[in-house]
C-alpha cells in the first residue's frame, strides 16, 4: 500500500466507527481525541479493525502511535507496505 492508500484505509475505518462524522476535512496533525472525541474504546476498535481487515497486530504499548492521522499513517507505513 502507498501512503495515500494507507490514509484511505484508516479513513474507511473511522467512517465505519463514526458514520455520522464528516471526515472530509480531517486534519493530519490534530489528535483524533481532539477532533472526533474518540475515547479508549474507539482506539481499541481502530486496532481491532486493522487486525480484522489487514491482519496487522499492534501491541498494546504502541496504541499511542495512533493518536492522529499523521502519526497513524507514519506508524503503519512499514507494517502495511506489503499489504495488497
Amino acid at each position: 500500500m502507498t501512503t495515500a492508500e494507507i490514509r484511505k484505509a484508516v479513513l474507511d475505518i473511522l467512517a465505519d466507527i463514526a458514520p455520522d462524522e464528516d471526515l472530509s476535512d480531517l486534519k493530519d496533525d490534530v489528535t483524533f481525541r481532539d477532533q472526533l472525541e474518540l475515547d479508549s474504546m474507539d482506539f481499541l476498535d481502530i486496532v481491532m479493525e486493522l487486525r480484522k481487515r489487514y491482519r496487522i497486530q499492534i501491541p498494546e504499548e504502541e496504541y499511542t502511535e495512533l493518536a492522529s492521522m499523521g502519526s497513524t499513517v507514519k506508524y503503519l507505513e512499514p507494517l502495511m507496505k506489503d499489504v495488497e
Partner: protein
Amino acid sequence: MYDTIIIGAGMSGLAAGIRLAHFDKRVCILERHSAIGGLNSFYRHRGRDYDVGLHAVTNYTPKGARRGPLAKLLRQLRLAWDEWSLAPQVGSSIAFPDVELKFSNDFELLVSEVAQKFPKQKDNLRRLVAELTDYDQLGTGDTGRSAREVVGSFIKDRLLMEMIFCPLLFYGGSKEHDMDFGQFSIMFRSIFLEGLARPLDGVRLILKLLIRKFKELGGELRLRAGVDRIAVKDGAVEKVVLANGSELQARRVLSSAGLPETLRLCDDCPNVESPEVGRLSFVESISVLDVQPCSLGHDRTIVFYNDSDEFHYEKPNEPADVRSGVICSPNNFVYGQPLADGVVRITSLANFDRWAKLDSEAYRRAKLHWYDNLVASAVRFVPDFRDSVIDTDMFTPTTIRRYTGHHSGAVYGTAKKRYDGTTHLKNLYICGTDQGFVGIIGTSISGIGVANRYLLKM
C-alpha cells in the same frame, strides 16, 4: 463449538452479540421465548401494538453529539444516529403535593424550576452536578457510598431530595429506598443531563435494527431455546444444556439472565454464594384512548408522582402501591407524525408474591381491580382521561417474570451487582441489569463492555 454462547436476546445480549459477530467470532444467542427483547419487548393484543418495559430511551443526545453513552453505543455497534429514529420528549415533570418540577432534555429547565420552587437549593444543585462521577464502561456504578448520604450533603431540603430520587429510583433502583452514588450519577445523567426520547414505532424498531445487524454479521439466534442447566467441570462451563435436551459447547458463555438466575443454572450452584433476588417489581396499566392525550390537556411525556412529601420506594404489602407511580404517554414525544392511538401507561410498585399466588380467575379479577386503582390514583396528577378509554391491558410482576426470567419479577435485578461481569466460573460472564447498568442504552453498553473486556480476545 462456538466462541461464545449468549443467554438472552435482550438489549445487552444483542449488543454483545453484534460486537462479537462483527469481529468474526462464532456466536449464538439463546432466547427462551419466541420473541426477542427480554425486559424491553413488545406484543400485539386485540389488533394493537404494545411495548413492554421501555417508556423512553434515556441517555438521549442529539445527532452529532460525540459524548455520552448513546454516541458510544452507536460507534461500538456501527450504527448511524438516524437509524434509531429518536424523537425527543415534549417535557416531563415530578409531581408531589403542592409542588411540581418540570424538566426536559434541556437541564436548565430543571435548574430554573428548582430556583423558583426551592430558591435556596439552586446553587446546591449545581454543586451536586459537579460532584457526579463520570459515566464509564465498567465498574463505575460502585462507589460504596450511599446516594442519599452524598446527595444529602448538597441538597438541604428534604422534599427536593425526595423529588430528585423519585424518577431515578423508579427508572433504575434495584434496592429499596437508596442506591449507590455511582448508580445515582449514571441515572441522574441519563435522565436529567441527557434526556428522554422514543422512536415513533417504539422499542420494536430498535430491537429489529439490532437483530438484523446481528444476523447480517453472521450471528446465530435460536428462539424457544431455554437453557435448562450449565454443566460445570474444573471451574469452567463445560457445556450448555437446553430445555429440549440438546447440548451446546462454547469457549465462553455470557449470560444476561440475571446473576442469581444464572448461578442457579450452574450444576455447582449449591456450593456458590448467590446474591438475593431483587424485591422490587411493578404493575402497569395501559389505557388506549380515542383521542390524543394532549387534547385532554395532558401534554407531559412522563409524570413521576407521589402523593405525600415522603417517597416510599419499597416492596409493598398490597399487590400494588398506588401512592406513587409513573405516568407515561408515548404520544408526547416530538414525532414527525402523531401516533395512531392515544396511550397512557401508569406504572407502580408491586408485590410479586401477591400476584404469583392467584389462580387464573382471581388474577384476572385482580388485574381489573388494580387497573381501576392505578388510574384513579394517577388522575389526581394528570387530566382525567377515563371517558376516552377504548381498550385496556395490564401487566404485572408475573408478566415481568415471564419476559425477563428474573425471579420475583425483579425488573432491575438483584440489589447486589457484579460490576466487573465475572462469576465463579472462569469462562462464564454476566451482562445486562445485574452487571450494573440500566435503561436500554446502559444495558447495551454493559453487553459491549463485557464483550470487549473478556470475549474479543483471541
